[in-house]
């Protein structure tokens, strides 16, 4: 057991190291000096003012140091949870900006991932071997999972928000509100949350439903199912087993999907200008704020790694075979 997790942990650490280094390279390897871009955006100012600004920002971002030093500083400050300053935010700490955005993204991602996984699998299991469902409902699943996130998002926002005014068009909460602990704010928050959530949920849902449907059909054909049938066990029991066993690959799938969902949330947040991390990424790309990008990606890397690790643990818990294998020492 310890050996297994020890190994995993090591892999994760090395992965993190490599990923983080790649991440650090981003702003350094970008052509064009970010300060120049920042200054060139505040137009109408005199060359002298520009000069002053350039000096100011260069010092601010610590770009005046040699690369190796910058690299060491990067790790050092990373350990202290400092991701540097944002160009797009004119020197606001990147961590602050991310932290302000994270709640939205998590509020979007966690329910979208878990619910779609749960609902999709349940539905897929139902559809499996029920011809009418299989032929009626599943096609919908295929369409959904083949739909680009942003396209669905745009259609939803146009129809439900723009045309029928059922939901707000954009933003994280009403522009007429301030964050307070009141039902008003809370409900408004949810209202703004629904559409982005839905566009993430639906696409995912389709994928899981189909995946589960296929998996469970395999399980229903497996030897243990046939044996149970031969012994007259009711369908209930057989399905229960099949579902349970089909679930396992779906859990692995969950880990593999994370990256996809993150990118999905990115485009979705853009469509609804939902003030989450994805939206921040877009803003950063648009304004060439590589420090911000670097910070966000660092954040995503950690997030995905963490999630993967959790999935690993969960898997061990739910799949006896891995447990047994580990007791045998061979993971």
């Amino acid at each position, binding site marked *: 057991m310890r050996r297994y997790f020890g190994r995993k942990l090591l892999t994760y650490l090395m992965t993190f190291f490599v990923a983080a280094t790649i991440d650090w390279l981003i702003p350094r390897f970008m052509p064009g*000096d970010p300060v*120049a871009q920042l200054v060139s955006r505040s137009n109408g100012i005199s060359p002298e003012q520009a000069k002053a600004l350039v000096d100011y920002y260069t010092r601010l971002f610590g770009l005046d140091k040699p690369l190796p030093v910058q690299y060491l500083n990067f790790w050092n400050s990373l350990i202290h949870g400092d991701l540097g300053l944002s160009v797009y935010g004119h020197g606001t700490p990147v961590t602050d900006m991310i932290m302000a955005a994270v709640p939205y993204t998590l509020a979007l991602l966690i329910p979208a991932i878990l619910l779609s996984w749960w609902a999709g699998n349940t539905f897929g299991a139902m559809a499996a071997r029920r011809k009418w469902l299989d032929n009626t409902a599943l096609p919908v699943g295929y369409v959904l999972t083949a739909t680009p996130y942003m396209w669905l998002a745009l259609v939803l926002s146009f129809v439900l928000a723009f045309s029928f005014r059922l939901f707000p068009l954009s933003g994280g909460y009403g522009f007429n509100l301030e964050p307070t602990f009141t039902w008003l704010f809370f409900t408004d928050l949810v209202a703004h949350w629904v559409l982005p959530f839905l566009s993430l949920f639906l696409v995912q849902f389709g994928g899981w439903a189909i995946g589960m449907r296929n998996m469970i059909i395999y399980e229903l054909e497996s030897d243990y199912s046939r044996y149970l049938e031969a012994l007259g066990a009711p369908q209930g029991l057989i399905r229960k087993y099949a579902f349970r066993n089909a679930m396992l690959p779906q859990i692995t799938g969950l880990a593999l999907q994370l990256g996809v969902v993150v990118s999905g949330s990115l485009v979705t947040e853009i469509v609804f200008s939902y003030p989450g991390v994805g939206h921040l990424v877009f803003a950063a790309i648009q304004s*060439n704020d590589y420090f911000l990008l670097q910070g966000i990606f660092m954040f995503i890397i950690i997030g995905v790694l963490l999630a993967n690790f959790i999935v690993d643990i969960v898997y061990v818990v739910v799949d006896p075979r891995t447990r047994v294998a580990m007791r045998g020492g061979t993971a």
Partner: protein
Amino acid sequence: MHLGRYRVLALLAAASIVASACGSSSATSTVAPSTGTTTATATPAAAASATGLPATDTTVYPRAETLYTSGKQWGAPSTWNPFDGNSAMGVVGLQYETLFLYDPIKDAYTPWLASGGSWDSGKTTYTINVRQGVTWSDGSAMTAADVAFSINIYQNAALGSTLFTFVDKVVANGNDVVVTFKGTPAYQEWMQALYNMPIVPAAVWTPLNTADILKSLNMKGIGTGPYTYKTAAQDRMVWVKNPTWWATKALGLTVAPTYIVDIVNSSNNVALGQLLAGGLDLDNNYLPGIAQIVNGGYGVTTYFAAAPYMLGGNTAWLIPNTQKKPLDDAAFRRALAEAIDPNNVVVKDYGNIVAVADPTGLLPVWTKYIDAAQVKSLGATFNTAKAKADLAAAGYKLGSDGFVTNKDGSAIKLNLEVPDGWSDWMAAETLIATDAKAAGININPTHPDYGTVVNDRNGTSTAAPIFDLVINNDVQIGNTPWVYYDYIFRQPQIAAGAARNRNYEQYDNKDAWALVQKLDQTPVDDLATMKSICSQLQKIQLTNEPVIPLWYNGEWSQVNNSVWTNWPSDKGAQVQPATWNGYWQMGAIYMLTNIKPVKAS
């Protein structure tokens, strides 16, 4: 069961959002030299109501009293420092004010925080009469000392201002501030400064006036303006009316909206959606298809009811790299100017919401400085045939590929760069390239990443500018055409690098620069001299085409009349309709005093 889970999650999310909203703002306010108010109070409220959710003091801005704007803010509001070019929307104009307003349409200076200002007979000393009865938002009175301090602050090297290269001394004298100059005053620049310098309370800013003056975010600062800081978030900046605004008593002016919510720019379709849905009253972004929308009965209007719909805000120039062959040849640039049909861009790209630029490139508000006769005789106009002829005459022969070649026979392929993602300009460059190709000039439209464009255009500490052609519109409308000529002819060349934001084309013309300086030192009321100098400069510009004017980028402004009406327009109140930096003091502030709520709340 899963439903339960999702409620919990959403609740947690809500909690963390509230928390982070307070958290981040209080985090920044530690840097800010003022005491927290709104958002700070939210924290105890949150803490108190952590158990269950009783309706504690929620802040809801009534629709009828709130003005929703968008267009200035390209990112989350991050600094409220009036001396930082990137300060949040309205910091200068709504919160801090200037001594004068300048109205480009009427070309008139209106005393604002100054009750008046005048030159002495020799035009060597300028006296500012500081308006009495003006109070800071903390209640204390604004004094001549504050004004003197606010001007003197520009001696701070960190601000990199050129003001004190010609200003000598600024001293408070009773209720006046007396300004003396070094040699001939740069009248044009001084007048420009008068309506651009924010007046700040000396009490607050004296300690901040250090090398790190820009580091102070100055959230919830103290100004004289009609609005004060309410709150800010990643996607918005909110101002609340200052009940004790001096102008109400002094000038009988009141700003209509109690709240101004400025929404950080998002994608075109969101902005347009908000505008059409009435979620946005004033949008200062470039939006596609405005012509259709204005005529589409959505209740959306613009400054002009018909083309060009928008006031001209600045000129979009085609900037050639005059250090490179063949663009170093005036004849070639001239032919290029004739080869391009800006009208194509105006119609096909912008759908007539912009106007073709005058051959001089001067904005319509500067028409009186244009030597029409001279333009008629020298001005380059679109004419493919003529362009071809001129090229041939100048000795550029056609290559096998049908494009003109350098005189040494080498092929000519000019890269025209606009930043990737700048959709309207990307469309424009394609049209321009097509026109040029028709005249035998091989232009290759490219849209590299913004950083690359800036590098190629400005050069770096190590590399000279390597661009062939770029489109640029850096310099905005102002009180004097001098800003444009300074932009075109600036000498000496500024060292390559980030700070290089004048004379991108690297055009060397000492005589022109002498004229520009002469213009700068001409009093703003000496119209005759200004005209003659401008005419000479125009001659140089028209014959050498160091930069080629294309079209007048609009002062993008589209308004929804469902909640607020009586917006600026050529028929009604003729004031600037923009929330951008510098426009409030060019009269946009009157927009707020003019608009009327459709139905009183």
